[in-house]
């Protein structure tokens, strides 16, 4: 474990060092790629002045709302369709069509419908999270072990108890394992939404920097985003490990 960590840190440090060296030696043009030192001092000044926290809080709020709303819609619909093969067959082509729509083209529509505030970004995150949650719930309920269902029925379960004791836990294992993906998608939805039209958030910071050819600002924004995702997903991994502890032997 420590060996893995040592290599992870080593590779990152080597890349940054090579980048910094490349710029200083004149091999790379800092106008296009900036350099790690400048990016670090930009992040430091953002952190010290406190501006980054405000933007980060907005982006996280949008992502979390998108995750919650998308998860609720996806899980409920996944459950309903998995329990009703007829409804599943009827809605199948529509779900495939909707899932095929590139989300970026939806962003301007959402801006029009929900305004420049957080809700257009939440909506974009929802369209990404929803399908991951939906497909996993659907699969989880459909894949519930036949023997477990029969056993619980023999032990006296009603339909509702069957859902509670077998189908929901069975689907939850699929849902949890897709939580990492969903979380990443929620962040992407929020940032892309901000990027295309807003006055706050990390996506706004990045787009502002791009507008002034400030590559240092762009990289600094991307770096903050990356760190936040790594930290949050480490938290999710811990929760997941606890909730799915029965899987390990």
């Amino acid at each position, binding site marked *: 474990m420590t060996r893995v960590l040592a290599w992870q840190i080593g590779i990152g440090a080597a890349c940054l060092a090579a980048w910094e060296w490349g710029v200083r030696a004149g091999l790379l043009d800092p106008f296009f790629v900036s350099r790690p030192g400048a990016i670090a001092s930009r992040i430091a000044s953002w952190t010290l002045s406190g501006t980054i926290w405000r933007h980060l809080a907005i982006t996280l709020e949008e992502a979390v709302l998108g995750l919650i709303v998308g998860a609720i819609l996806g899980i409920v619909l996944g459950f309903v369709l998995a329990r009703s093969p007829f409804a599943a067959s009827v809605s199948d082509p529509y779900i495939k069509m909707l899932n095929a729509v590139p989300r970026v083209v939806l962003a301007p529509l959402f801006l029009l419908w929900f305004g420049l505030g957080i809700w257009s970004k939440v909506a974009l995150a929802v369209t990404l999270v929803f399908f991951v949650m939906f497909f996993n719930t659907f699969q989880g309920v459909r894949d519930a072990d036949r*023997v477990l269902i*029969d056993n*619980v029925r*023999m*032990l006296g*379960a009603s339909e509702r*108890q069957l859902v509670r*004791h*077998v189908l929901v836990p069975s689907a939850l294992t699929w849902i949890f394992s897709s939580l990492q993906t969903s979380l990443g998608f929620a962040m992407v939805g929020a940032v892309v939404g901000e990027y295309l039209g807003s006055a706050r958030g990390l996506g706004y910071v990045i787009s502002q920097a791009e507008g002034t050819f400030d590559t240092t600002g762009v990289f600094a924004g991307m770096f903050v985003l990356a760190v936040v995702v790594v930290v949050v997903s480490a938290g999710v991994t811990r929760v997941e490990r606890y909730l799915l*502890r029965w899987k390990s032997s």
Partner: protein
Amino acid sequence: MIVLDGVSRVFRTPAGAVYCALDRISLSIAAGSFCAIVGPSGCGKSTLLNMIAGLIPPSSGVVRVGGAELSGVNRHATYMFQQDALLPWKDVRDNVGLGLTLAGVGRAEAHARADAWLERVGLTAFARHFPAQLSGGMRKRVAMAQNWILDRDLLLMDEPFSALDIHTRQRMEGELLGLWESSTAALSDGAEGPVRKTIVFVTHDLEEALALADRVIVLSAGPASRVVAEHVVSLARPRDLLELRTQPAFVDLYRGVWADLRAEVIKSQREAHP
């Protein structure tokens, strides 16, 4: 107690063909008896058991339990499956008490009664473990406790020990007989005094069937299986499973039933590899 009257079961294969698994099976199983059903693989043994369980309805004919025609899940029965059927996300204690919880028994009482059963099957130390953390034999013990805690009159078993190694298997068979011999059931056929639970035990292993049961029913090779023979196992109880298999009376019985079963096994192998 259980009566099958002209029960047939037909399946439709994915290709659209019709497959007849069981053809007009009629038999009755007395309350308090231990009845084994043997037959070559693919003869519809499990299908027969599933119909007694009410998990699948017969295509024609009726199943009667305690005189009443069965429709839906058989509420007099629990079922021990060949595969693992414990809920992997519940610990051992919650699994054993599951039937009680489903019946609306409170958490504290369900736990207390589950603990009593865990003591009977020697798994007290594993109450908080999850099924994935147990050995195959332990999981079977948990399943046994999960079934017996409900105290139903009928226990259906579908090759429950077939995945275990031979020694664990013999131990489990011994434990099953011990539980059964000390069991009582409410439903009796008007008999005087207490009656044991009824067990219907499906297996492809004739030795296991003879060692455990009062009566062995031989099914023919599929498709369209029928009952080809019935044998009464008149070995005294309690039985010593470790010694039983070499006793002359057992060997004679084995020869007699095997003569019937052998022909069906050969037929089924010819079907599989023509």
